[in-house]
């Protein structure tokens, strides 16, 4: 049937209306992706919450620079030893307003480099803070192998520079949590006038000479036994990570290297006992109902690292 011109136009209009509706529907369903993408793009959105409230304290690392220890308001070491829990006299009186800038990072990384096996030389890295205006600061570090000195300071006013020494504790008794044959990640929180700055502090620790590159299968087999132990208890998630051990699988690897490197704590700690202890440590549960979570004091005497000593189980840990 021949169509007249008005019908043709009506059909064209309807077709275009359909196309337009489809386009609008697409935009509505996708929720304007361009705008949302721009908001969530990390490179275009600075962490405004920290930058806008950040004092001018630009942390920068200067590896070659020796610490001068010129921190007048720092509580002396002898007093700290006498009163380790007492706060330093961080008095606000006479403190100037801090100078705020937008270039201070909220996160940074300070690498401690590489620690060779059984290297007893003190490993220290200096870390310089440029302080502007009145700044009161504290440094918190974890795990215990990472020890910043000083860990609290005051810059009453004007521009000041503070050198902080990042020291490595590797006392054999407590071991301070350093694991062999892996990158150990220390963590520091710097509080400047209440604003927190996050620092990752990696340190590569060489493993024992008895563990070579071709021993990977042995190490991974032992690690898998720990994973299987946790899985059998329905706690495989603790092997991936927990608030206490964010990368628990890597902790298991470090302990496996330690155990195999000794070797097997001089054949005095059975493999099943070892995997059970590590599984309990990672999940914080008492699987064998011996009233203890993780490594027992006698295991430490056999060769297990002192810092891994467990604790008595409570009723909720079972």
């Amino acid at each position, binding site marked *: 049937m021949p169509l007249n011109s008005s019908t043709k136009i009506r059909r064209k209009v309807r077709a275009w209306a359909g196309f337009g509706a489809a386009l609008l529907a697409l935009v509505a369903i996708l929720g304007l992706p361009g705008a949302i993408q721009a908001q969530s793009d990390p490179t275009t959105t600075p962490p405004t919450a920290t930058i806008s409230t950040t004092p001018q304290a630009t942390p920068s690392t200067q590896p070659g620079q020796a610490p001068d220890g010129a921190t007048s308001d720092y509580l002396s070491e002898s007093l700290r030893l006498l009163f380790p829990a007492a706060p330093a006299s961080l008095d606000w009186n006479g403190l100037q307003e801090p100078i705020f800038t937008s270039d201070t990072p909220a996160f940074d990384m300070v690498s401690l480099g590489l620690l060779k096996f059984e290297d007893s030389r003190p490993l220290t890295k200096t870390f310089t803070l440029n302080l502007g205006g009145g700044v009161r600061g504290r440094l918190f570090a974890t795990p215990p192998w990472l020890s910043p000195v000083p860990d609290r300071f005051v810059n009453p006013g004007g521009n000041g520079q503070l050198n902080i020494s990042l020291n490595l504790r590797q006392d054999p008794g407590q071991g301070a949590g350093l694991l062999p044959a892996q990158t150990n990640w220390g963590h520091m929180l710097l509080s400047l006038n209440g604003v927190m700055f996050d620092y990752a502090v990696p340190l590569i620790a060489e493993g024992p000479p008895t563990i070579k590159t071709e021993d990977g299968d042995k190490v991974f087999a032992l690690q898998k036994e720990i994973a299987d132990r946790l899985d059998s208890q329905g706690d495989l998630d603790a092997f991936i990570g927990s608030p206490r051990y964010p*990368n628990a699988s890597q902790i298991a*690897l470090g302990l496996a290297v330690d155990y195999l490197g000794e070797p097997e704590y001089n054949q005095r700690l059975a493999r099943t006992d070892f995997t059970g202890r590590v599984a309990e440590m990672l999940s914080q549960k008492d699987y064998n109902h011996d009233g203890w979570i993780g490594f027992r004091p006698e295991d430490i005497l056999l060769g297990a690292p002192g810092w891994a000593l467990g604790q008595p189980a409570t009723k909720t840990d079972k």
Partner: protein
Amino acid sequence: MRFFRLLLNYLCKIALLKLIFNPRQKLAGLALVAGLLGLPLLLTACGDTAPPADVAQRYLENIRDSAYTSAYDLLSSDSQLKVSRSQFVDRLTRARTEAGITRTDIVKVQPPNIVGKRASVAYEVEVTTQDNRKMPLFESLVLLQQDNGWRVVWPPQ
């Protein structure tokens, strides 16, 4: 913006209903609705579907080759919010230099342990230092399953 989106939504619904209930264009309308409903699924399916071990392998290869810019693309969104691309590149380059590492070889990447949207991939690398010393490192990556696929959590601890 919210008002604009609501208005668009409303207009679209009217237009679609008209299209569906018009007997001449019923089929076309239904096809359009099916297509629109399927499109988001299709777009999701276009994300990175690689398993965690493959993503970890790619990440490690980038780190091995000092291709930190590419490695950054494989970080989880939270990790990318924490550290900028330039900072990541700069700090890892510096860390490698300060540790005196001249070469990294990937020895093994283990099958992952997966629980829900979290995975852990253990691996072994051998690093060579400036004094030609070779040392094995046994480490693990934590990965999160995101809309764009499995992504690496950094820093690892």
